C-alpha cells in the first residue's frame, strides 16, 4: 500500500495524525499526495468555509478561537488554518496563532494547522486549497481560514471562501482607507473588533457608510457590520448568527453554486499557474533552449514576450 493510500484511509477513519501527515505532504508539494487528494475529493464539499482576514493586530486569531468555541457549544467540529508570512530571506517562519487559541487546544474536534506562506511561484494558493479540502473530507463542519489580508494570494483564498469576514478595529483611520482600496469588495461580513475602545462607534458608522456605497451598487446581500470584543467573547454570538444568515442566503439565492464554481475554477487555475511557473523557472535555470532565448534577449534580438511565447512552445505548455 502506498503511503498516501494508507494516510487517506486512516484519515477517513478519523485519524488526526494521518490528516496532519497528509497536510505536510501537500505543503511540501509531494507528488504522492495526489493520489490521496483524488480519493478525498468525493468526500469533500460539505463544510462551510469561512475566510477571516484583516490587518495584523486586529484580533483575527482571537476571533477565530471564539468562533470555534461558539461552534463547539453547538456540537459542530471545526478546522482552523492559520497562514502567517514566511521570511523570503531565510525561508523560516514563526507561527504564533496558537498562542491566541489556547482554550481550543486539547479539543480533538478542533483541528488547528499553522501554515507558513513559504515560497514563491504561487504554491501557497494550491496548498491552502488542498488543506481546506483535506479538512473538509476529514468531516469538519466549519473551516476557518485565517490570513493577513496582504498579498494577492491570501486575498484570493478568502475571496473564494463561502463567507468572507473582514476584521478591522477602532482608531485606525488609515485602516478604513486600506479596506476601501482592496478588500471591501470581498467582505460578506465586516467586524469591528476591540469595540470597547474609543472610536468604535465612529469606525462602525464609517464601515456602514462604506457598505452602503459599495462599488457595484446595491446587491441582494448587504454585508452586515458587527461589533465584537473577541477577548471577552462579546458579539461573537451575533457574528455566528450573521455567518449562518449569509450561508442561508447563499443557498436560497443560488449564489452558493456560483461560489463553488468560482472556487473550483480558481483551484484549477492555481494548480496550472504553479505548474507553468515551475516548469518555466526550471527551464530558465537549466540552460539549454531557455538560455539561448535569454541570450537573444540580451542581444536585443528578441523581446520578453517573444521569448515567453517560444519557451511556452518549447515546453508544450
Amino acid at each position: 500500500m502506498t503511503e498516501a493510500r494508507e494516510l487517506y484511509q486512516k484519515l477517513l477513519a478519523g485519524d488526526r495524525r494521518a490528516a496532519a501527515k497528509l497536510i505536510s505532504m501537500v505543503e511540501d508539494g509531494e507528488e504522492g499526495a495526489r493520489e490521496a487528494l483524488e480519493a478525498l475529493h468525493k468526500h469533500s464539499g460539505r463544510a462551510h468555509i469561512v475566510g477571516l482576514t484583516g490587518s495584523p493586530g486586529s484580533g483575527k486569531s482571537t476571533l477565530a478561537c471564539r468562533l470555534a468555541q461558539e461552534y463547539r457549544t453547538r456540537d459542530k467540529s471545526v478546522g482552523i488554518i492559520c497562514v502567517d508570512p514566511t521570511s523570503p530571506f531565510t525561508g523560516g517562519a514563526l507561527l504564533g496563532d496558537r498562542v491566541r487559541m489556547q482554550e481550543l487546544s486539547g479539543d480533538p474536534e478542533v483541528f488547528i494547522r499553522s501554515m507558513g506562506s513559504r515560497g514563491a511561484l504561487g504554491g501557497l494558493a494550491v496548498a491552502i486549497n488542498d488543506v481546506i479540502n483535506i479538512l473538509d473530507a476529514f468531516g469538519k463542519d466549519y473551516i476557518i481560514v485565517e490570513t493577513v489580508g496582504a498579498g494577492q494570494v491570501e486575498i484570493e483564498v478568502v475571496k473564494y471562501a463561502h463567507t468572507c469576514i473582514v476584521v478591522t478595529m477602532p482608531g485606525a483611520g488609515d485602516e478604513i482607507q486600506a479596506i476601501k482600496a482592496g478588500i471591501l469588495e470581498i467582505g460578506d461580513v465586516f467586524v469591528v473588533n476591540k469595540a470597547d475602545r474609543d472610536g468604535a462607534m465612529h469606525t462602525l458608522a464609517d464601515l456602514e457608510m462604506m457598505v452602503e456605497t459599495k462599488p457595484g451598487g446595491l446587491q441582494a446581500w448587504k454585508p452586515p457590520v458587527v461589533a465584537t470584543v473577541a477577548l471577552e467573547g462579546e458579539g461573537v454570538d451575533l457574528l455566528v448568527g450573521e455567518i449562518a444568515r449569509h450561508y442561508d442566503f447563499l443557498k436560497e439565492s443560488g449564489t452558493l453554486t456560483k461560489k463553488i464554481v468560482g472556487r473550483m475554477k480558481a483551484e484549477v487555475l492555481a494548480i496550472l499557474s504553479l505548474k507553468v511557473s515551475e516548469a518555466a523557472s526550471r527551464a530558465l535555470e537549466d540552460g539549454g533552449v531557455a538560455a539561448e532565448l535569454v541570450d537573444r534577449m540580451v542581444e536585443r534580438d528578441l523581446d520578453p514576450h517573444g521569448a515567453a511565447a517560444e519557451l511556452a512552445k518549447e515546453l508544450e505548455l
Partner: protein
Amino acid sequence: MAQKVRVLLCKPGLDGHDRGVLIVGQALRDAGMEVIYSGLKQTPENLVEAAIQEDVDVLGLSILSGAHMALIPRITDLLAEREAQDIMVLAGGVIPAADAEVLMRDHGVARVFGPGTDTRDIVTYVNERLGI
C-alpha cells in the same frame, strides 16, 4: 520541493518565563525552520495534541519551574501512546545535569540544552539528527 523542518516550542506546566524559548524560536526561524509557538502554561495532553496536528519534526520543551521530572516523562509517554515517538523531543531551561541524564536515558528526550547554549548548536543538532 524540499521538506521543511517544523518545530513546536512549548512552555509546559506553570511557568511564565518565556524569554529563552522565544530566543530559541527566533534562532530556529532564522535557520529556515517553521517554528510554532504554543504560548504559556500548556498541559502535556494539549501540547501533544498540538504536536500531532501540526505534524512537527521536533518538540521543544522549555521548563524553568523545576517540574521537569513530572512533566517531561508524562509528555513522552503520551507521545508513545499516540505512536508519535518519532517526534524528536528536546528540552531546555533549568534542568540539573543528573535529571537531564535520566530524561535522555529513560524518557526518550533526545537532548537537553541548558542555559548558556549557543543557539547555533541547537540548529546544527536538529539538522544533523534529521539528516539535513
